């Protein structure tokens, strides 16, 4: 991300659109979308996912986990996929990340095909998320030398850390968007860490569906800035020229 690296640390990148409830949706949508994407995404699978949702009922929060069927369309190599749930479109790219110049057209294609099938009335959210796996060169290497985002543990606290997780949620675009940076250790492997960046539209219906792709482009710029801000020159060298 940011600069184009020879060995980017990206495990997965996801662009997700959640459509408002006003958007008409029925069981024919996955089939119609598959028809349009079949050439690029010929492999098809159905998956059941469980999503945790928190609903407020008379002031009390209640958790529920409805199971949802998702249609997933893969490329031949199975490293790029489009997932379609009820009023949900997600485009995933797995390692090896081919770069934004490849990912962006896939997002655009999936989104434009969906807009041809159903009239999108609003957007609850859009999110662009990157999961990076960062491997330090040795177990002795300190996070401070490679990252500008890491847990600060005061000297009166235990310093022998087994696992950790830190996250920060920041405000962008005058509150319209949010960005989350999260870093957690890979268990039993003191050299590896997961750096996750999630940039999302925090206010439902704050942009019209017609400019969704422009928002995605902006989001990508913000994600690049965040990523470049998280890493030091020393780590940058590891990702190649």
């Amino acid at each position, binding site marked *: 991300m940011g600069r184009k690296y020879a060995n980017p640390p990206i*495990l*997965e990148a*996801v662009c*997700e659109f959640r459509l408002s409830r006003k958007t008409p949706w029925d069981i024919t949508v996955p089939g119609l979308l598959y028809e349009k994407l079949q050439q690029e995404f010929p492999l098809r699978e159905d998956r059941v*996912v469980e*999503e*945790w*949702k*928190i609903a*407020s009922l008379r002031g009390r929060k209640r*958790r529920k986990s409805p199971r949802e069927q998702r249609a997933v369309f*893969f490329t031949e190599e*199975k*490293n790029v*996929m489009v*997932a379609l*749930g009820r009023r*949900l479109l*997600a485009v*995933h790219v*797995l*390692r*090896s990340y081919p770069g934004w110049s490849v990912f962006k057209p896939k997002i655009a294609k999936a989104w434009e095909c969906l807009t041809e099938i159903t009239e999108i009335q609003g957007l609850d959210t859009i*999110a662009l*998320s990157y*999961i990076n*796996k960062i491997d330090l060169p040795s177990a002795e290497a300190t996070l401070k030398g490679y990252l500008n985002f890491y*847990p600060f*543990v005061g000297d009166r*606290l*235990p*310093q*022998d*850390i*087994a*696992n*950790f*997780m*830190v*996250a920060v*949620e920041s405000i962008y675009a005058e509150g319209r968007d949010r960005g*989350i940076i*999260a870093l*957690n*250790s*890979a*268990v*039993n*492997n003191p050299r*590896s860490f*997961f750096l*996750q960046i*999630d940039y999302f539209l925090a206010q439902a219906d704050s942009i019209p569906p017609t400019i969704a792709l422009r928002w995605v482009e902006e989001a990508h710029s913000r994600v690049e800035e965040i990523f470049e801000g998280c890493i030091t020159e020393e780590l940058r060298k590891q990702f190649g020229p």
Partner: protein
Amino acid sequence: MRQRSAFLSSAPLWVPSHRICVLRTQKASGLGVSEFAASKTGQENWWPERLILRRISRSPQTRPKEHSPRLWGVLPFWGRSSFTQGIREKLIRLERLGVRIPDPAEVVEYLVRFPELISVVDAVVRLAAKMLPEAQLTLQVYHNPEIDDQYLVLYARFASYDETTIERIRAVRDKYRPLFKNTSCWLLLTTDFRPPE
């Protein structure tokens, strides 16, 4: 008993149903564990809830004997579609079945590279657990030291080995071979003749 006392000393952190562990530290002895928890409340800050649901649900008595990793499976992007997170969740489920995964991040990375293996791994592990009930199963990525190659291995480790051990492992392999009919990769079930850890 010493192990148990370590659980009890940190037990209060498992009990509350609305906390998120952000940091886990461990003394050099490996027995003293202190954890720091933080929680957020309010409508906007719902995402930590997901962590609790997954990670802080077991009582100290039902936890494995060793301090099993609890933070590696979390992903703070509550409600996001994530393929990687799906793999992590699958591995967590396998760990709950008793399968050891010494370096889960490496297995996640491998499965992201070879996504066609994901559904098969689950089936193979479950089959092996059923057909080799007394074996300790360990899933890891094997690095061939001679050539730049790596693949996924499921080790079956037994308290004692005899002449039927290899035959039984082969029988499992024969059973799961059809699952790989349409894939270009392979998961090797074998043993290294070590005792269970």
